[in-house]
């Protein structure tokens, strides 16, 4: 059983941070802190200058990270050292250009070497996934697909070929905190489950424990990014205890969904 599959044995809480925000050593610390607080999987953002799927919070984090001088190579080093201390599944979230620029073969080989389990690339839709599909498979890195409220007839097409887990986008727009999510996510997750056993996790806009409980009830897990990044924006290097407390409360909320099932 892969590390990613392990993460979904119970309702999963997935936390996101941008590597290098405020500096790459702190990122390593935050990852371990989230793992200790009960997170089941961590998404590590490799910052890109022009993240078109991100809202202002993660845009600002990307800018802070790039200004701190972080590079793809430094992020690999940080992951390698984190991997020695934890078994938690780790996936990258980044845009295609930094990966292409590093060299697909080199990048995925390095992912396997340092213990990365999967990758999410928001600007690599189904139609273009042949860019990296074979190479990611060769190195055992799961290519994680996104499904959006606008996917309709594409839901099952994407789900059938999914690996790792499926990132279900909760609502229209970019990443960032939302007070209300009205998409019919039950139907989307239902359509996915008809064609695949790949676990699903809902993300975009989730920030309260109520939302975590609700959406963990619909899917197999929830993903929280901007709300965590906001804590790091506010507290900088000293954010670890705040991140710990927040992640712990969100994980507990997600687990409450399980008790109801």
């Amino acid at each position, binding site marked *: 059983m892969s590390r990613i599959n392990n993460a979904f044995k119970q309702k999963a809480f997935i936390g996101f941070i941008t590597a290098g925000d405020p500096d790459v050593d702190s990122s390593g610390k935050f990852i371990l802190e989230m793992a200790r607080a009960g997170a089941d999987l961590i998404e590590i953002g490799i910052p890109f*200058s022009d993240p*078109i*799927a991100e809202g202002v919070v993660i845009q600002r984090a990307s800018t802070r990270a790039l200004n701190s001088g972080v590079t793809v190579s430094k992020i690999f080093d940080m992951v390698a050292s984190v991997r020695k201390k934890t078994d938690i599944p780790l996936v990258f979230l980044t845009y295609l250009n930094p990966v292409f620029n590093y060299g697909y073969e080199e990048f995925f080989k390095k992912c396997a070497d340092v213990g990365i389990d999967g990758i999410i690339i928001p600007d690599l*839709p*189904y139609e*273009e996934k042949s860019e990296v599909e074979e190479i990611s498979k060769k190195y055992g890195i799961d290519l994680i*697909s996104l499904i959006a409220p606008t996917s309709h007839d594409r839901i099952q097409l994407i789900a059938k070929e999914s690996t790792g887990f499926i990132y279900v986008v909760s609502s229209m727009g*970019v990443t960032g905190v939302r007070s209300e999510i009205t998409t019919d996510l039950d139907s989307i997750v239902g359509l996915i489950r008809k064609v695949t056993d790949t676990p699903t996790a809902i993300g975009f806009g989730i920030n309260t424990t109520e939302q975590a409980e609700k959406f963990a009830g619909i899917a197999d897990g929830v993903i929280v990014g901007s709300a965590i990044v906001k804590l790091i924006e506010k507290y900088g290097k000293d954010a670890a205890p705040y991140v710990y407390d927040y992640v712990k409360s969100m994980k507990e909320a997600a687990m409450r969904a399980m008790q109801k099932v």
Partner: protein
Amino acid sequence: MSITKFGIYGGQYIPEILMNEIIDLEKAYNYYKKDPEFLRELDNLLKKYAGRPSLLYFAENMTKDLGGAKIYFKREDLNHTGSHKINNVLGQVLLAKYMGKKRVIAETGAGQHGVATATAAALLGLECEIFMGKEDTDRQALNVYRMELLGAKVHPVMSGTMTLKDAVNETMREWSTRAEDTLYVLGSVMGPHPFPTIVRDFQSVISKEAREQILEYEGKLPAAVVACVGGGSNAMGMFYNFIDDKDVKLIGCEAAGHGLDTDKHAASIAKGRLGIFHGMKSLFCQNKDGQIAPVYSISAGLDYPGIGPEHAYLHSIGRASYVPITDDEAVDAFEYLSRTEGIIPAIESAHAVAHVRKIAPAMKKDDIVIICLSGRGDKDVAAMAKYRGRLIDEQDK
């Protein structure tokens, strides 16, 4: 070759949330581009609203002065709104209307595409919102007001470098937030498929007319056609109907800013590398880590870190060539054309004029060069005066 690509260039590198929109757009475009009613309405708008066909003007003074090839200008500057941008927006905004969309959104750099989009939206009765980098809304306050006069809402973009590329990012983000009733009217031959094809088709009227006009006036084809290139829409329009005429050289002029040996330029062919950005695989100015580089040109319309995929393809197969033109050369050409022909060109178009000043003298007298004069220069007058050390804009004082 994949239908979404030109060779290896192009494609659809965009978030899943926009994929069905892009697919719908392609279907609608493929349908309406053959629909007689759509074509009749577009043709009518181009002729009776935009002022097409545009003149093909023989620049006799410049020809005599340079003493080589005969020089013609395709006068896109005489179109309604003052540039070639109207050709594309009338097509795309009309398409939006036929698709039942209520709203159009667009990015703009200096404001030419924003003004053209706001114009077409006003005419065709659609809501219009324009995204423009904060740097540009400050530099081009007049164009911001112009768009507002036309009924558009202008959003200053505060992210990233606060210029054109960030305006594109923000328009994409807006489109992923509200797509159902909205069409993104992209301003150049860039972005994900089908935009590079749609924009090229709507701009190809430039070379369709120019080819017919030159055959009528001179009875032969030109030795070269020359156009400036940022994203590359006027150049693609100027090249397209000459691509199969193998003896016609196609020359694009990129912004070399302060020079290619500095980091202040926007020359994606000369200095860029293959990459993936704004939905397409093409050539981009980027740093060693694949982060998109801040670019610079005196011309806001050429101040873009990439180039449309069809240009990258024409370059890769050697069908078109691309040359760098510095700020200094462009400003000289801006002044030269004003004095020599009584035509004040857009600073973008002045890049093409600058190159022809270099090559025409060495060409044969019976050779013909056509320059795409993509826009008029009124918008640039204050900046050019400032470049020469004269402050004439009240806001600069």
